């Protein structure tokens, strides 16, 4: 049976060049970068080379890159770290309704601890309105955190514009760019952001490593305390194999970005066109202001998990915003935020493309999805039309 992995938004297969580099480090370069001896110096050199590659991918300086264990830690570090660092300045934070839980939940934890939290709504395509941000900013606002590309619906935010509004008011701006880095050009200076999170395993690097970009001079306190690694901002023996692999993945992402973005945009648009030809389906997210890899549609009358299971039986890997797959009782907060009813949100399907996907994969998916949808609808008590 054909195997089609279209869940690159969840995680990506490692690039073969990344596996090669990582295996070499695992086997031959086991020193601790903090050690004085040859093994340690070798490790330190590789660590700093990787930092340079990772910095380049987002147009940053190497000393503005702080390696973490992933996107979640980077998001938490940005939000909780800035809040703690600027405690004396104020206790108001602004975010959006469609952030990843790695942003929303630390914000809610701060709220419980006495902070004021403004959650900006989004329009029906998932975009924050800049005027809403302008109105929400206050004297005591210490941080704005708005994601670059949404993980579920792929919508891109007008980050440069939003960050400019925050900057005019002297407020730090963080963006969760876990889903945009490596897929579209991301440059911290063009975006004008002060903090930016990203994660290796979304760009064909390994799981367990990410980074937080911190613009020089931004005040932020660490989440954890210990050794002097990462200039005291993130202690613990560095995950050298992971970091070096991240560096390699960053180099490859930069090298292949334009060609891949073009190729994947075409595949994405074929998928969107093919799927929206099915009756009673809607495309979620913005039609054009969206990362090249994301397709998200809702099929009326059916539920997402059974859709995923059915596709899985055909060798197709996808995801859904259905409650059954979200681990909570409610369907995706993102789909609800763009105005979907619970019922429709349950019937959502996310297909996320990547470098291993081909035209043939798209053909296969466009052949199988309608069959599965039809079968599930025929079992659905809501589908009375027939």
């Amino acid at each position, binding site marked *: 049976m054909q195997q089609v992995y279209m869940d690159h938004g969840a995680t990506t297969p490692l690039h073969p060049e990344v596996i090669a580099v990582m295996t070499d480090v695992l086997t031959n370069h086991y020193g601790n970068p903090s050690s004085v001896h040859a093994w340690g110096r070798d490790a330190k050199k590789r660590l700093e080379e990787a930092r340079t590659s990772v910095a380049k991918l987002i147009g940053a300086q190497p000393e503005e890159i702080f390696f973490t264990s992933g996107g979640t830690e980077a998001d938490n570090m940005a939000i909780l770290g800035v809040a703690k660092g600027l405690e004396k300045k104020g206790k108001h934070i602004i975010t959006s309704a469609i952030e990843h839980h790695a942003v929303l939940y630390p914000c809610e934890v701060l709220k419980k601890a006495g902070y004021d939290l403004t959650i900006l709504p989004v329009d029906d395509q998932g975009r924050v309105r800049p005027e809403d941000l302008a109105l929400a900013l206050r004297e005591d606002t210490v941080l704005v955190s708005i994601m670059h590309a949404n993980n579920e619906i792929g919508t891109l935010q007008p980050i440069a514009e939003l960050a400019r509004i925050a900057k005019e008011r002297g407020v730090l701006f963080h963006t969760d760019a876990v889903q945009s880095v490596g897929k579209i050009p991301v440059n911290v200076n063009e975006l004008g952001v002060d903090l930016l999170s990203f994660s290796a395993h979304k760009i064909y690097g390994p799981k367990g490593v990410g980074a937080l970009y911190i613009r020089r001079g931004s005040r932020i306190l660490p989440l954890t305390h210990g050794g002097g690694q990462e200039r005291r901002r993130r202690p613990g023996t560095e995950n050298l194999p992971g970091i070096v692999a991240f560096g390699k993945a960053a180099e490859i992402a930069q090298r292949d970005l334009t060609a891949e973005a073009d190729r994947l945009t075409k595949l994405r648009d074929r998928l969107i066109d093919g799927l929206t030809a099915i009756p009673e389906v809607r495309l979620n997210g913005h039609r054009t202001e969206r990362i090249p890899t994301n397709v998200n549609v809702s099929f009326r009358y059916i539920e997402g998990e*059974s859709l995923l*299971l059915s596709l899985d*039986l055909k060798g197709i890997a996808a995801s859904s915003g259905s409650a*059954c797959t979200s*681990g909570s009782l409610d369907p995706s907060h993102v789909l609800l935020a763009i105005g979907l009813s619970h019922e429709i949100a349950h019937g959502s399907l996310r297909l996320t493309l990547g470098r291993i996907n081909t035209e043939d994969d798209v053909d296969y998916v466009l052949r199988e999805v309608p069959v599965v949808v039809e079968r599930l609808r025929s079992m659905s008590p*809501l589908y009375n039309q027939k």
Partner: protein
Amino acid sequence: MYTEKVMDHFTNPRNVGQLENPSGVGEVGNPTCGDIMRIYIDVKDNVIQDIKFKTFGCGAAIATSSICTEMVIGKTIEEALELTNKDVASALGGLPANKMHCSNLAADALHEAIKDYKNKSEQG
């Protein structure tokens, strides 16, 4: 995640569909929570002669509906009323913990259908 038995019933659900003139119909759940089960029964001589279901929901919802219909076809009303959601889950070799509550409602739907049948027969 799911047992083989669940996947079997999900892939080849027994008794999907609806009955033209059912003796009783039961429905539980609602679209907000993501699961709706509707069960149709045909009762003659106090025995469930035929049964069909339609389900909107996850794999567990579909599989429990399917096996539940299989478990009660040919049974008396009294026997069918003894069936619990837990029995249904056990017959499938168990369900993931988070599915035990929200998606394991087939016996409830069956009981609703029997109630409907009883109401109708009393009226009739």
